[in-house]
């Protein structure tokens, strides 16, 4: 399977329907790379026309802005918007809620106007259109799955249903955690916390969330954000439950179940 870059597409005189914004975690983090690969496999199978920016993609500036470094954010935003506007990008899909939020909500007033779609929303519409067909008796049939709401998808952008609707087709048993949807508990990574040691406290946020996840008795914690994925995986290891439960992105669950 070949993943094209926008530069390659342009050189061959074609333009893809979507830019797949991979994001830094999806590009470099070994765990998140698996999510990226799973999602591009789905796109490929369904026959969606897309390309990535490759080396021309840069951090959206989300962690810099939320840490308080507006200069760095503006630099990154300027650079990214220049690149995307030069390619005439219209639609963007991304597997990262932080990239999603920044490009969708914060780039427009800086001159970057695109239709931005989170991968869970795209997966939901592909399912609705009948374009995603699953194997008979899929690997997750009857399994207990609990979905962890990403703050930047849920509270930040009011996307609560799409990921749940996608999970429904797995024919699994969906269990909610004690704090879910608009009351969902953060994984602890947002606001640039991912990139520094947590402040002193009585426990870590990801451990607190992992405890709630463990309490559901689910075998799979479904995530929709690479950072939530990392935080929850660490939390579950801390609870020594890594052999009983796995944290998997919704794209991975679908990719593995597709016919």
């Amino acid at each position, binding site marked *: 399977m070949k993943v094209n870059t926008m530069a390659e597409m342009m050189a061959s005189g074609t333009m893809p329907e979507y830019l797949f914004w991979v994001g830094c975690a999806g590009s470099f983090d070994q765990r998140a790379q698996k999510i990226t690969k799973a999602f591009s496999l789905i796109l490929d199978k369904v026959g969606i026309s897309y390309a990535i920016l490759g080396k021309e993609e840069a951090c959206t500036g989300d962690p810099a802005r939320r840490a308080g470094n507006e200069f760095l954010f503006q630099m990154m935003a*300027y650079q990214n918007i220049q690149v995307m506007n030069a390619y005439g990008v219209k639609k963007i899909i991304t597997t990262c809620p932080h990239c999603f939020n920044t490009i969708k909500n914060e780039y427009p007033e800086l001159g970057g106007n695109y239709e931005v779609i989170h991968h869970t929303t795209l997966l939901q519409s592909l399912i609705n259109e009948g374009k995603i067909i699953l194997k008979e008796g899929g690997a997750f049939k009857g399994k207990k799955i609990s979905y962890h709401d990403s703050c930047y998808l849920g509270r930040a952008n009011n996307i609560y249903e799409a990921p749940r609707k996608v999970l429904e087709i797995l024919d699994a048993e969906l269990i909610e955690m004690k704090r879910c949807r608009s009351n969902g508990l*953060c994984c602890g990574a947002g606001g640039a916390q991912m990139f*520094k040691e947590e402040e002193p406290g*009585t426990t*870590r946020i990801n451990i607190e969330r992992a405890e709630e996840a463990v309490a559901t008795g689910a075998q799979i914690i479904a995530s929709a954000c690479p950072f939530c994925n990392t935080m929850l995986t660490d939390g579950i290891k801390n609870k020594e439950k890594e052999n009983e439960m796995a944290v998997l992105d919704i794209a991975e669950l679908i990719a593995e179940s597709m016919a």
Partner: protein
Amino acid sequence: MEMLAPLIFLALLATAGFLFYKKASLIKKTILLGKSEIQYEQPAHRWKQVLLLAFGQKKMFKNPLVAFLHLIIYAGFIIINVEVLEIVIDGITGKHRVFLPYIGSFYTYFINVFEILAFGVTVVCVIFLVRRNVLYIKRLSSNDLAGWPKTDANLILVVEIVLMSLFFLMNGADQALQNLQVAHYAPTGSFIVSSMLVPSLSQLSADTLLLIERSAWWLHIIGILAFLNYLPYSKHLHIILAFPSAYFSSLEPAGKMKNMPSVQNEVLYAVDPSKAPTDATPPATFGAKDIFDLNWKSLMEAYSCTECGRCSAACPATTTGKLLSPRKIMMATRDRLEEVAQNINKNTNFIDDQKTLLHNYISVEELRACTTCNACVEACPVSLSPLDIIMELRRSLIMEESNAPSEWNNTFSNIENNFAPWKFSPEDRENWAKEI
């Protein structure tokens, strides 16, 4: 005495009104010390928020039982005010139960509604006192409230119970006086709650009853006027400011951070100097170090916060024992505002007191603990935003003081040089694609 009473009443009313006006003006002036970057667009949508969040208390109903109890006090407060209107007219005109001759038998019906509500308010206030002082509900007994805030909360509940009791006593004594056919006390019919006091009150002489009825009447209205003047010093100010706060609450996706056009332009001029106007002056400050640098919406929200603590109960940092508590952010902002207000009141203009909201009231450790998850804004019944204040202070910390943990400095330099928060070569960004 009959001539004197209305005069005394008018003097009291005028004094209470004047004092309230004076304090309210000072608060307004203090709030407007903030920056004026308020959004007024979509008024229809904003009025809808006022209806849903403030009038309708929609978000309170995330916890239906507490919402119901709060609704009783709220409905009681609004509806019993109709009776206060009559009391005020009585006070000014020297009449007694001025509405009675006009509406006849409906009068009993109205007072019964007020009494049922007043009884409900009394019961709920007792329940709320128990929740705060006996059951120790976590968000109502945390360290944020140590000292004055705890007293403030209890005082409000006790005063409401006292006011309601005076209302019952006044009505009970009135009915006992009616039974004795004392002049001025026209028959009103029996009132549903206060009639229960009549048997014991009827043991007393007419003179004693008159003294009780008049004392209860005066104490009740003086209590209300005093309470009005207590509001601006108390967390209870939310009964007024919740409405404008709901109106001005953000209509944009919660994840969107406020843009800084000044920095946007700085960056633009740096990469494309031809775009820079010749008279471009860099902004004086970045982010907020003190209340003057915050938007006035944030300052109003600090006065609007009633310290219920739903934000902190939902905050991932607070609940995992970090120093940060979003409720404390609001309280600290109001404390600083009060200090600045007193400073201005004393010196006409603000005289530098060598203090700032950042550092003196809100510490670096608190600010660093925020995950920007928006749980606080979501949890707040009127969508106040501690997050806005936190982010503006963070901006000041980084851009004015270069005050960042070393890990963040590394992250910044990675983003700047490698275009990712980690130290990977930008050349490797698409390596994953070769592995499929």
